[in-house]
């Protein structure tokens, strides 16, 4: 299990290669990469990501540990950036390995759902004509319901 919270950029492809190589005996590898999207009008200058040092790592570790108990997984990778990002930058990725694709897929979706709403990150969009905190979406909170 590898949980990384960092300001620096990362390369999801390289991370996937490294993660996959760690256990060549595994059959299925799923990855999710999140990328900073510009606004429809192309007005996003910076996506600023604030987090709660200490709690962030603890929350992500707890979410990953829960996934390890729910599915038959080989390994989990979580990388999440904070600081100032530009449109097109990779914000975060999760990856899972398992003997079976169903476990790898479900666990990756679980990690994403919990990371979205239970890990202490907040996004602020600095636009050409203003700035605002991104509001949490009801559907992200609702998505947790399917894992009860």
């Amino acid at each position, binding site marked *: 299990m590898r949980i990384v919270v960092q300001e620096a950029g990362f390369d999801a492809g390289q991370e996937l290669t490294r993660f996959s190589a760690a256990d060549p005996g595994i059959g299925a590898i799923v990855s999710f990469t999140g990328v900073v999207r510009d606004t429809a009008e192309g007005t996003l200058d910076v996506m600023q990501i604030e987090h709660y040092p200490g709690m962030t790592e603890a929350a992500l570790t707890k979410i990953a540990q829960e996934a390890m108990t729910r599915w038959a997984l080989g390994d989990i990778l979580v990388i999440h950036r904070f600081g100032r990002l530009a449109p097109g930058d990779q*914000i975060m990725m999760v990856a899972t390995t398992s003997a079976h694709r169903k476990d790898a897929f479900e666990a990756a979706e679980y990690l*994403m759902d919990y990371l979205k709403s239970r890990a202490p990150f*907040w996004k602020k969009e600095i636009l050409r004509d203003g700035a605002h905190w991104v509001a949490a979406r009801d559907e992200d909170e609702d998505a947790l319901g399917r894992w009860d």
Partner: protein
Amino acid sequence: MDVLYFAWVRERIGLPKERIDTSAATVTALVDELRAREERYAAAFADLSALRVAVDQELVDFDAPLAGAREVAFFPPMTGG
């Protein structure tokens, strides 16, 4: 006790962290104390349904006890990913 603020709560109150001496028994009691301090606190805590709270880095409900707590953090719903 250390009290931390994040995102727009931090911006509204005007600082990321402060040391507060309190005998509040619960988070709600602490919120009431803060609200009574100054307008910026009253504004930040106007609608608790728009806020989340963590005690010692664990998400809790607003009626959670504060006995023994070292760190309380207030912030809006999280938007990671």
